[in-house]
């Protein structure tokens, strides 16, 4: 098991963008969500946090985002904390605003005039396959489309790091596979850093460059599995031998973590 105050437990080849060291998080109701968590997010990677529910993976995302306080430990950013994009499990759209208005929100907060923002919003909508839907209201869209709006909203602010909290968990498999591929394409073209929380072994193997398996009560990192399959990953990867092999390894690590 990992100990507190140890140096980065996993050797770092690329500089880390943000590192959590010895992080504890105890909620006011006494629940210990995280205990002695060490974790580094490297620049440009697509890191998945995989674990059973209650292992504190969402808490890690919230802490990185600066929502909520640490009970102890530190969060270090390589330089100043950059802009953060956050995608929740729920699309979290404003029902009274159009698709355009929803995507405009982060820029509006920054005081960017609508006319200046329009081109960037159009581009973000194109990137996620929403071109022409600017005037639609969220209630007129399907679940997958709403999630696309949510992703476009986090894109438009051009974040350095994108935090995704089980974004596709509530979608049907066909939509989820499509959005997985779209996310990979976006990640490849934008060179973001993505931290992706999921409880699906198959999704994490398909998407990630690296998986951290977490165990629950208290939440901590139990294992690290790099997925050294180079891009481009396309639907044929889902049926490949390498995919099956990685899924087997990750599943075993997850089972181990859940027994520990």
């Amino acid at each position, binding site marked *: 098991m990992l100990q507190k105050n140890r140096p980065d437990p996993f050797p770092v080849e690329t500089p880390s963008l943000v590192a959590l060291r010895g992080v504890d998080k105890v909620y006011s109701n006494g629940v210990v969500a995280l205990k002695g968590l060490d974790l580094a997010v490297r620049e440009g990677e697509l890191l998945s946090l995989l674990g059973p529910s209650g292992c504190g993976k969402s808490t890690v995302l919230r802490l990185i985002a600066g929502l909520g306080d640490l009970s102890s430990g530190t969060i270090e950013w390589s330089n100043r904390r950059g802009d953060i994009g956050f995608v929740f499990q729920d699309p979290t759209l404003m029902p009274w*605003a159009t698709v355009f208005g929803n995507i405009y929100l982060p820029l509006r907060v920054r005081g960017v005039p609508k006319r200046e923002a329009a081109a960037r919003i159009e581009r973000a909508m194109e990137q996620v396959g929403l071109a022409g839907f600017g005037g639609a209201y969220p209630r007129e869209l399907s679940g997958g489309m709403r999630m696309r709006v949510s992703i476009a909203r986090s894109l438009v602010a051009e974040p350095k790091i994108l935090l995704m909290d089980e974004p596709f968990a509530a979608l049907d498999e066909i939509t989820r596979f499509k959005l997985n591929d779209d996310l990979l394409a976006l990640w490849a073209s934008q060179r973001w850093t993505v931290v992706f929380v999921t409880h699906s072994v198959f999704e994490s193997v398909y998407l990630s460059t690296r998986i951290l398996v977490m165990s629950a009560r208290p939440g901590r990192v139990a294992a690290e599995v790099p997925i050294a399959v180079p891009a481009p990953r396309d639907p044929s990867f889902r049926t490949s031998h390498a995919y099956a092999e990685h899924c087997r390894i990750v599943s075993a690590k997850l089972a181990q973590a859940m027994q520990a």
Partner: protein
Amino acid sequence: MSRVLPPLLMLIIGLAAWEIAVRTAHLPVYILPGPLVIAQTLVRDWSTLFPSLVVTLLVTLGALAAATLLGVAIALLFAQSKWIELSLFPYAVILQVTPIVAIAPLIIIWVKDTATALLICAWIVSFFPILSNTTLGLNSTDHNLLNLLQLYGASRRQVFWYLRLPSALPFFLGGLRISGGLALIGAVVAEFVAGSGGIQSGLAYRILESGYQLNIPRMFAALFMITGTGILIFVILTLVSHLALSRWHESAAKREG
């Protein structure tokens, strides 16, 4: 059209049945006048009834405007801090649960100007739905959206304008619809208690007056005017609410099979 036709048809059938019943039973007009007699009275007494309607309507609209302004203002104050809400909300409840007929005489004694006294009474009756609904609305903002705005570094002011106010709008409009009817009821009740005559008298006074004179058709005519006004206020406020919410809120959006 399909929404207007059934109730309209029902109204015509009801009025016809009423007219026939009154005629076949040979009921005298001082017991129950038929709708035709009431309509004739409405036309004949229009010159006295209409100014009274204007008086009642002014009190109603004035009270509704005050209820909207103060209800929203106090709700905004409550939204600033849980402490303010906790310490003041019970008093709003007290004002709401105390029957207006019981405090109207006091208000009429304290406030010299009758019109102002009536306005205050109607306001007391009508402001609570707006206050409680708007307060609820301001507190019902999606927590994840709040988190998101915090992440973007939004100021309190931006959170309020971009998020809390629009989230509260459907709740406020629901409250406004209830308050519209209550303002009219408050105005009429207060007029009854005040019972003042003269030129400045509203429809409630016309009803009282007609009662003393056993002029039952005119009593019904005034009653119809009050009901008609209430329905009109409700229809207008429903329309406003529909126009404001039709594109995005489940309550107003058209459901497709």
